[in-house]
């Protein structure tokens, strides 16, 4: 027994050492053991058939594991996935965007309860704005969710994050669940939230939740430099100002089941005001810009087996977003801009089962976007997007394969003002076809060992800002393409008893290219004038590795350890002339570390739950000119949390305490945007 344990640990340990030796890297950590029984039953009972297993499983954080992480926002949680970099401008209210496998933020699709969140203005979804309060599961897919029965839009990103809000679940005859949570801690945080779930009948449930966040956003930060002999040249500590945030979120959903199907409808409302703390530079320690956001969407879905072989899914969404940016500082350019965005989206997915192991799907989506603004000479752009996806999934014994072809048709309409005259324009109709192929093979039936591979070609459209931003946009921009090749494997071993109850190992190697990358380039003298051009070219070679072990230490005492590691060589091939000292050719692109990784450990003993997490991001450069002036030090944080649940019948009271950045490391993710040092949080959660 002990020998077996030792061998297994050595294996685990050596993979970790391998990580240090910079070989390996990772992708997925689906819920191997913690299959959510309620949901599993739901699937099985309601549909009466086994869901089609994903060809390439996602990396997923869900349930207690997600709850245990010291994360305030979805962006904080996603940091634990391999192959992902978070751009974090610091603090509770700072922008946090995700870059997957170095392809750039705009290539990532973020789906909230099944429907993509859009931002036609700048293409970026600030995941810092989405709290974890009402979230049940976060999954990350490279390529696309390898399931064919989905809207056409789900085929349209180079990588996707699926955020699933909590589904109401009722124990026994209980028809109402209530949850009251209060979080407080550093940065003057006050974060109460409430949730009510109600069961009208066996086939109809609903949930309502609301949350308020307030934080002063103040924290100490420290910058210092030393002489080469180690003595201090300068050392300064200051307080981060104008990082306050105030946000209100309300969300409601209704879930119904029908014969051979289900439906849901939901709304989401978010209203916030925040300070934009800005960059810290010599002689400037504070900024005063502010931003207001109001986001609303309502969406619904319906899904039914119309016959044994034919299944249909309909989705629709309306979203409207408001953003107001204000600079009141009279020493700088006074700015007071407002932007309004609308999106209307409808989708139909139709799956037909030709044979028990052969499915085809046809999805058709239509999307309309509109941007309005108070800017003078604004172009009021509209975009009509039609997406058609044809996909098929086939299983031959232990080999599974999926292929999809996405057709995208886009037309933009906009206005220009030239010498007092307003002219209406139509962009050329754009037609693009982009394919994807996913494969999975299990060589030996007895072992949970799977080989997998995928290829995907996709593009991202230039955003409205890229195309039409007053004086800066370039209406001639072409789409930016991402090509991905991935090959990997995963292996798992589960056991009922013994010390190791589960072991899992995944590894993926990938090669991505980005062509026609849209880059801001100077358009004249002075730094206020830039324009966008399709001049970038990036090649990315990467390895993602992850390992997971669950251990049964003693009675009621379990330990779960996750390791993930990413190696990325993401090089700039834009300008072959630009070589030598200070050149960018073949330089590692901005903010992509060669090495990054995380370790998450969780120990549970009865109702006590202790979590430790460690994140490491290696050295990076802030541009693809890899010289000392742009060098960014590695950073790593250790977070610790503990929680205890008191139970009285069906009533639960959970107390948690968190310490983040335990060793008080002062670091920047984005240059001159200091991150907080050690900070604390207390959470009281009351369920009844």
């Amino acid at each position, binding site marked *: 027994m002990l020998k077996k344990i030792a061998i297994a640990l050595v294996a685990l340990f050596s993979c970790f050492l391998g990580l240090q030796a910079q070989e390996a890297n990772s992708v997925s950590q689906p819920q191997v053991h913690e299959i959510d029984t309620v949901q599993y039953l739901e699937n099985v009972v309601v549909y009466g058939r086994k869901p089609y297993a994903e060809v390439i499983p996602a990396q997923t954080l869900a349930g207690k594991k997600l709850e245990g992480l010291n994360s305030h926002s979805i962006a904080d949680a996603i940091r634990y996935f391999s192959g992902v970099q978070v751009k974090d401008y610091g603090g509770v209210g700072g922008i946090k965007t995700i870059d997957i496998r170095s392809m750039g933020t705009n290539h990532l699709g973020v789906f909230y309860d099944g429907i993509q969140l859009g931002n036609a203005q700048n293409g970026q979804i600030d995941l810092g704005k989405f709290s974890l309060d009402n979230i049940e599961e976060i999954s990350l897919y490279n390529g696309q969710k390898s399931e064919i029965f989905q809207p056409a839009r789900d085929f349209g990103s180079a990588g996707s994050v699926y955020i699933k809000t909590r589904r109401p679940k009722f124990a026994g005859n209980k028809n109402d669940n209530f949850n009251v949570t209060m979080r407080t801690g550093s940065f003057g945080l006050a974060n109460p939230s409430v949730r009510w779930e109600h069961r009208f009948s066996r086939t109809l449930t609903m949930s309502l939740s609301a949350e308020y966040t307030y934080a002063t956003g103040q924290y100490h930060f420290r*910058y210092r430099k030393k002489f080469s002999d180690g003595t201090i040249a300068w050392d300064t500590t200051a307080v981060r100002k104008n990082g306050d945030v105030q946000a209100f979120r309300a969300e409601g959903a209704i879930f119904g089941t029908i014969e051979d199907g289900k439906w849901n409808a939901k709304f989401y409302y978010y209203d916030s005001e925040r300070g934009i703390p800005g960059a810290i530079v010599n002689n400037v320690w504070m900024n005063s810009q502010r931003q207001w956001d109001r986001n609303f969407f309502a969406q619904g879905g319906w899904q039914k087996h119309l016959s044994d072989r034919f299944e249909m899914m309909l989705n629709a969404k309306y979203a409207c977003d408001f953003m107001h940016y204000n600079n009141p500082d*009279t020493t700088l350019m006074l700015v007071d801009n407002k932007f309004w965005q609308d999106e209307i989206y409808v989708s139909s997915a139709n799956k037909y089962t030709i044979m028990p192991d052969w499915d085809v799907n046809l999805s058709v989506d239509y999307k309309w976007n509109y941007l309005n603004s108070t800017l003078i000479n604004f172009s009021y752009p509209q975009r009509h997007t039609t997406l058609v996806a044809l996909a098929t999934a086939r299983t031959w014994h232990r080999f599974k394969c999926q292929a999809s072809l996405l057709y995208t048709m886009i037309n933009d309409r906009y206005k220009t003002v030239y010498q007092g005259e307003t002219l209406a324009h139509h962009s050329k109709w754009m037609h693009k076809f982009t394919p994807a192929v996913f494969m999975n093979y299990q060589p030996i039936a007895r072992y949970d060992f799977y080989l997998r591979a995928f290829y995907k070609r996709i593009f991202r459209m230039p955003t409205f800002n890229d195309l039409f931003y007053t004086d800066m946009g370039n209406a001639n921009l072409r789409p930016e393409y991402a090509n991905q090749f991935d090959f990997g494997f995963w292996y798992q071993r589960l056991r009922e008893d013994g010390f190791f109850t589960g072991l899992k190992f995944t590894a993926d190697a990938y090669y991505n290219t980005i062509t026609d990358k849209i880059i801001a380039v100077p358009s004249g003298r002075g730094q206020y004038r830039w324009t966008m051009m399709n001049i970038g070219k990036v090649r990315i070679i990467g390895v993602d590795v992850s390992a997971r072990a669950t251990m049964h230490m003693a009675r009621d005492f379990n330990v779960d350890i996750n390791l993930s590691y990413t190696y990325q060589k993401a090089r700039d091939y834009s300008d072959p002339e630009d070589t030598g000292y200070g050149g960018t050719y073949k330089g590692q692109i901005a903010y992509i570390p060669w090495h990054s990784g995380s370790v998450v450990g969780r120990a549970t003993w009865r109702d006590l739950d202790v979590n430790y997490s460690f994140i490491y991001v290696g050295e990076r450069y802030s541009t693809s000119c890899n010289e000392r002036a742009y060098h960014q030090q590695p950073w790593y944080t250790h977070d610790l949390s503990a929680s205890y649940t008191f139970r009285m019948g069906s009533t639960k009271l959970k107390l948690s305490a968190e310490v983040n950045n335990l060793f008080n490391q002062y670091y920047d993710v984005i240059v001159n945007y200091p991150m907080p040092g050690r900070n604390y949080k207390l959470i009281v959660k009351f369920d009844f």
Partner: protein
Amino acid sequence: MKKSFYYIILITATLALLNSCREDEVIYIKEVVPVTQPEYTSVEGFYLLNEGVMQHDLASLDYYNYATGEYERDVYTDANPTVVMELGDVGNDIGIYGSKMYMVINCSDKVEVVDKRTVKRIGQIDIPNCRYIKFYQGYAYVSSYVGPVVLEGEGNDEDVYQLGAVFKVDTTTLQVVDKCVVGRQPDELDIVDGKIYVANSGGYSQGAMIGYENTVSVIDIATFKEEERIPIAINLLGCKCDRRGILWVSSRGDYHGTPSMLYAYDTQKRRLVKSFDVRVSNMCLEGDSLYVISKEWSSLSQGYANGTYAIINTKTLEVVNEQFITDGTDSRIVQPYGIAVNPITKDIYVTDGLNFVQFGFLYCFGQDGVMKWRIRAGNIPAHFVFLGDNINEQ
């Protein structure tokens, strides 16, 4: 059981090893790079101020030493290692007056004052959003975008705009002693016959109803009051006065249908004497020659125009050379940005800002327009000042 704990501890220890990866940030000491043969004239060298892209706090100072033929990078941090957050954010102008050198650091809201030879810090003058500097009789005059805020109109026609100012600074005490309100977003200034001429841009109003400025403000130094505003063209930037009292003023245009232009204004006859259909983003006056460079993006044609590298004779007011780079090097220059001409040898220095986020290039051309050498400078190399005892260091 015990053994497994032991392994877990080992794993944790391995993690701790990762902690050793982070190093202390070390200050930049200067890098000295041999460039060419030494040259001995009364011009000892020149400083090149690299702007540094906004928000990155990357302004830096380089020095070229003629006596050694060596290029020295980061001389400011080398001389002043203890200054918190280094030189600052966006170096916009540089000038020497007496024994001191002044660097206008736009987004750090200050003028940094150092010894012109040792580059040791003497002090700083806090002027918000400062742009350009000139000196006259013991005072430094600094243009700044910061002046009073004006509210005009009512209701839907309400327009808010900011006027700019010229700050007067005592060069011995380094204190601001006075300021004079001028037009909107004033840029370069020059001084002739006891008068300051400032080019007003109105650059902040590009998207506002009020539109660009189109005037040069004239300040009488004796009273330090704005005397008049001379209409020239929209969105002015450069403003240099030659020895005959001709003021050379450049307009940026509106980036749409109106291109950048160059204008000659006679300060004695008080009238515009000539306008030049020449694209200009930066210029340099040396003797009777005005060197003009440009490369512009046009949002109408959605492309870059060809680069301009022209010389104008300030005596005859004629373009005498439409292409002072003769060896084809101009095709390598992505974003011509800074220009200077050695007053003795007439060698021409042009900087290339490239994409603004990496290190740019400094090119040296002989009088014949053939490239002598080029070297990487800092991030957005832009503003020059020559050092020497008997030269006009401004």
